[in-house]
């Protein structure tokens, strides 16, 4: 456990509304090592963002209910910390990049000031020094520091996202949670931002949890992957294990859904059906009603994690330890 920066054990989160309970995250286990980049992949409503918000402890209150689980950050269960103690970590040791750069910035504050604010909050330094560091951060993400005094609306989408990244990295966090950081951006700008994140990550040795729905970005950017479905991690392993030997039927379905640049096939092979209703999840395996290999047993028994290869874990009763 010594080299684990973050360890999530049996995390379960529900959202309560007036007339329903939404099972957003159901008993998730996940570890992030120092310097590792882990990709969390899944479709809308799979619970990806809820996981990140649980780590940051910014789940909406009172709708979200933490049912069970522990999140260890450097041997300290952050779910047990007081709000005051948590503020010491949030934004400082653990930082988050949100999906939409258009709404993550304050429209009426200068961008440089917004970065300096974070630095001042977590470090005992003067405003002048904080602003100087904010300038350095801007330069690091490729924005000339003359633009320190401009407002978010004067920046393009890609530049705003770089400001958000600069803000997240301003206190040299040990763990960066990036929730779909490039989804709102055009592909050429996405390539620029990913490239920048990669070099910053290497320079600062930051661990990254990258939440995305794009397997292409995972292949390019991550060391390990966790595939989520209906609030569970159905498969996890290294990028090589998952791409060379995808084993859960849902993972296979995801790959089948992708139009490939190198393929000449005329039809895609998507997963049939729709995501289950999170207020009324199917019994047994959550995926059984969409699974092409489902047997009667799948509707009754909730599958356990099976280790098909060292570190390659599949939640499926048809998976066999050692091989599939």
């Amino acid at each position: 456990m010594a080299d684990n920066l973050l360890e999530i054990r049996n995390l379960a989160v529900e959202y309560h509304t007036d007339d329903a309970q939404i099972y957003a995250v159901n008993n998730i286990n996940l570890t992030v090592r120092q310097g590792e980049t882990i990709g969390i992949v899944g479709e809308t409503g799979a619970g990806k963002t809820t996981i990140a918000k649980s780590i940051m402890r910014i789940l909406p209150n009172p709708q979200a209910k933490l049912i069970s689980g522990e999140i260890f950050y450097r041997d300290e269960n952050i779910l047990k910390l007081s709000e005051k103690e948590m503020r010491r970590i949030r934004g400082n040791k653990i930082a988050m990049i949100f999906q939409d750069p258009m709404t993550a910035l304050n429209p009426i504050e200068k961008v440089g000031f917004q970065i300096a604010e974070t630095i001042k909050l977590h470090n005992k330094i003067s405003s002048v020094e904080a602003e100087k560091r904010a300038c350095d951060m801007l330069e690091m993400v490729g924005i000339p520091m003359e633009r320190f005094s401009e407002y978010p609306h004067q920046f393009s989408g890609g530049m705003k996202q770089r400001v958000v990244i600069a803000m997240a990295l301003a206190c040299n966090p040990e763990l960066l949670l990036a929730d779909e950081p490039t989804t709102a951006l055009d592909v050429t700008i996405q390539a620029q931002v990913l490239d920048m994140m990669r070099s910053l990550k290497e320079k600062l040795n930051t661990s990254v949890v990258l939440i995305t729905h794009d397997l292409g970005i995972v292949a390019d950017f991550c060391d390990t992957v966790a595939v989520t479905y209906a609030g569970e991690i159905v498969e996890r392993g290294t990028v090589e294990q998952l791409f060379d030997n995808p084993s859960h039927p849902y993972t296979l379905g995801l790959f089948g859904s992708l139009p490939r640049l190198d393929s000449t096939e005329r039809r895609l092979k998507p997963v049939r059906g729709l995501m289950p209703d999170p207020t009324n999840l199917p019994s047994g395996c959550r995926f059984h009603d969409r699974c092409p290999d489902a047997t009667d047993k799948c509707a009754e028994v909730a599958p356990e994690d099976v280790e098909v290869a060292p570190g390659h874990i599949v939640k499926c009763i048809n998976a066999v330890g050692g091989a599939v």
Partner: protein
Amino acid sequence: MTPLLEVRDLKKYFQNKGGMLHAVDGVNFKLEAGQTLGVVGESGCGKTTLGRTVLHLTEPTSGQILFEGKDITNPSKQELRRLREQMQIIFQDPFSSLNPRMTVSEAIMEPLLLRGGMKKAEMLDETRKLMETVGLAERFENTYPHELDGGRRQRIGIARALSLKPKFIVCDEPVSALDVSIQAQIINLMLDLQEEMGLSYIFVTHDLSVVKYISNVIMVMYLGQVVEMAPADDLFSNTSHPYSKALLSSIPVPDIHNKKERILLHGEITSPVNPKPGCRFLARCPYAAEECNRPQTLEECSPGHFVACCKYTEIK
């Protein structure tokens, strides 16, 4: 054979505070019946405006649009009404393009009602057939859009577009708002419909892997102009324009063994307001030279493959 749709030197400018915004600037193409033209490019390149201008949802500034050989650039009101039966659009966002107060069957029936000439029972019958065609179960007939997920809503949008049996549909990012597994279901549906009904599509998207999959010919746009146009496979195997090259190399590929070299662009997109006459990609182009300040024209570099770059031979 006359192409189904032909567009000649189409321009659409918008008057804006700083001057003229050149949204679509001198676009030419032909679309044959039963074929798909893919239009790709980044935000603000004019791809949506192009689709909307062809359909007269915005009026062109200049240029010519021919449909089945007939000039439809300046149609009268009645002509336009009749044309709209032939030419339809599927919008990007299935969340905002449907009337929240109409049930599924009302929404699908609306075009039939507006055209007139059908009895209520016939229309209901037709609506049910359309729902079946696009894969919407009959039990959704009386539900409202907010009760449905994005994939099903997009199916309503497709059913509406199909209801008057058009020959040609502009698909404006029809799958961009959907999750990959749903996206694949919708793409398959659109391919099936094309085969059954002989539809022609203009498929506007920023997603290059989708466009290659569905198109016969692909047009790459940059700031209102076509920089490259080629048959789908040829564009990918034989990319010629420096912008297309950068664009293609930027797509993250879900493959860990063939990592390709990325061409990273520097600088920001130049403003489409009162652009200079030269190549619009000049400021970001790694091959920029003196002669790029001249206006660029589309040249045929191999049969059917057009590129607007004076340096394409050197770059290869």
